[in-house]
C-alpha cells in the first residue's frame, strides 16, 4: 500500500531543478507529482515518478544523493471538512505527519494526497479501519495512465 518517493538534496540556487528533471525526461520517466521543501541554503525535491527504481538509479549515477522513502497515498473527500475528518483519525495517536502534499489527480469527488508518516504501517491500518481509501501503487499508476 506504500508508494516509493525519491528525495534529492539540492542547493538553493538558480538552475538546480532543471538537471534532474531533464535527466528523468531523457530516460522517458514521467514525474507524477513533486514537492519542494526549501530552506535558505538547500532544498529537498521530493518526486513520485513512473519508474522509481530506474529513476533512483539514474539520478544516483549522475551524482545525486537520492533517498527512497515510503509514503502513503490517501483518497480525501473533495468537500469542506474532508481533510479535517481524515486527520481526525490520528488524534490521540502517536502517529505524526512529517509532511504532506497533493497529488496531481483526483477522481470525481475525491482528491489524492501524499502523506509521510513517522509510522506508515500503523497509519495505514488506522485509515483503513476508518473506511478511508489508501491508494496502492498499482491503483495509483493505473489512474495516471488513464
Amino acid at each position, binding site marked *: 500500500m506504500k508508494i516509493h518517493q525519491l*528525495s534529492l538534496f539540492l542547493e538553493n540556487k538558480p538552475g538546480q531543478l532543471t538537471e534532474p528533471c531533464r535527466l528523468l525526461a531523457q530516460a522517458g520517466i514521467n514525474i507524477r507529482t513533486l514537492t519542494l521543501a526549501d*530552506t535558505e*541554503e538547500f532544498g*529537498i525535491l521530493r518526486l513520485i515518478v513512473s519508474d522509481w527504481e530506474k529513476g533512483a538509479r539514474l539520478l544516483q*549515477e549522475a*551524482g545525486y544523493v537520492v*533517498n527512497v522513502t515510503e509514503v502513503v497515498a490517501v483518497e480525501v473527500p473533495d468537500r469542506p471538512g474532508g481533510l479535517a475528518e481524515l486527520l481526525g483519525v490520528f488524534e490521540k495517536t502517536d502517529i505524526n505527519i512529517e509532511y504532506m502534499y497533493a497529488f496531481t489527480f483526483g477522481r470525481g469527488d475525491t482528491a489524492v494526497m501524499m502523506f*509521510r508518516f513517522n509510522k506508515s504501517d500503523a497509519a495505514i491500518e488506522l485509515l483503513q479501519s476508518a473506511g478511508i481509501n489508501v491508494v496502492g501503487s498499482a491503483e495509483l499508476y493505473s489512474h495516471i495512465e488513464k
Partner: protein
Amino acid sequence: MIENPVKTHPASAPDYMPGAQLRELQLGRLQATVSRVYDRVELYRQRMNERKARPEDLRILEDLAGFPFTVKADLRDTYPFGLFASPLEEVVRLHASSGTTGKPIVVGYTKQDVGIWTDVMLRTLLACGLGRGDIIQNAYGYGLFTGGLGAHYGAEALGATVIPISGGNTDRQIMVMKDFKVTAICCTPSYFLHLLDRAAQMGVNVPELPLRVGVFGAEPWTDSLRRHIEAASGIKAYDIYGLTEITGPGVGIECHCQAGLHIFEDHFYPEIINPDTGGPVAEGEEGELVLTTLSKQAMPMIRYRTRDISAFVPGPCACGRTLRRIRRISRRSDDMLIIRGVNVYPSQVESALLAVEGMLPHYQIILTREAGLDQMEVQVEVTPPVASDRVAALENLHDKLAHSLSQTLGLRVKVRLVAPQTLKRSEGKAQRVIDRRSL
C-alpha cells in the same frame, strides 16, 4: 591476522636490527654524509663554517644538534641543482615537487639512491602485509611527483603485480579495481574517499571486492578518517609518510599495529624539535619533525625542517621492529590558520565533522573577511547515509555539525551543506582551505 611475508622476507631484516647496531650504522653513515656535503655543496659548507661546525665534530649522533638546519627556501634558492652532491652525469633521475608559488623544488637521485628508495618502499609494502601474489593498483601520480614511481619500484621489487594506473579517471580506476581483482591500492586518502563515493554510485560494492589494503599518504589525515575509510571499504588503511626533499614516499610507514609510523632509520635520521626555538623537545613531546638523510648521494639533506608536526612514540612496537616510531602527522606547522585570533588546523575540522554521526568526510574551509572580521565557513558535502527527505533531519545535522565545530575549535563557524561532488575534487591532494581574506 597473519602477516607472513614480514618476518621472513630478507629485505625487512634492517627493520629488526638491534638498537646498538643501528646507532653505530647511523653514526658511520651520518659522518660520511656530512663530510660529503661539506666537501661538495657550497651552501652546506658556508652554513657549517658560519656555525663553526666541522664534519669531524660529529662524534656521536647527538652532535648533529650543533649543525645548521636546511629549509625549503634553500631548495628554491639553489634551484635547480645547487644542492646536488654528485655530478650530473651520475644523476639518473630527477623529480620535482609542485611549488605552490613560483619555481618547483628539484631533487636528484644516483643509481644507488634509486636503489635505496626502492628498498625502503619494498620494506614499506612488506610492513603493510603485502607480498608476491598481491595486485597493487598504484594510483599515485606518475611523473615529476615522487609518489607514482616510488611506489611502483617498491611494488615491483616486492614481486607483486603492479598496475601503473596513475591518478585520475575515476571510473576506469573502479573498473580496473573490480576486473583485475586488485588487493591493494596506493593513493591519497582523499582520492580513495572519492573512489568509494563513485563506486557506490556505479553500483560497485567495495567491501565485496578482493581489495584488502590501502597505502595512503601525501597529505595529512586523521585517525577518525582512517576508521571511516576502514568501515566503509572493509580494508586495512596504512599511513605512509615521505617527502620529495628526503626521497619521496618510503620515509616511514605504519605496521599492522597502526600505532605510529616506523621511520626507516638506517637511511633517515629523525629529530623532533621545538619549531620556535630549534631546540630538542622532551622525549615523547610534540614538535616539528626534522630529517637527515644517511645514505643519499645525489642530494643529501642535513637537518631538513619538514614543517610536519609529530612526536616520537616511546617504547618498542608490538610488531618487533626496532625502528623508532613517530605519531601520525595530522598537521603541518605552516597549515595553521589564525581566525579572529584563534589557531585552527584543518585536521581539527576533519575530526569535528567525523565526530558527528553519519560521517561527512568531504569538506572545505572557506575563509573570508567581512567588515574587518575573519569569517570561517565549512562546506560539507551531503552523503547518502545522512541525506533525508525531511528538512528537519538535515537542519538537525547542520546544527550538530556547527556545534561540534564550535566545541572543537572554540570559534563560531558557519556550516553550509552542499550537494555531493560540488567541492573541488583533487585527483591527488585535497584542497582543504580556500583563503579569500585579502590582507
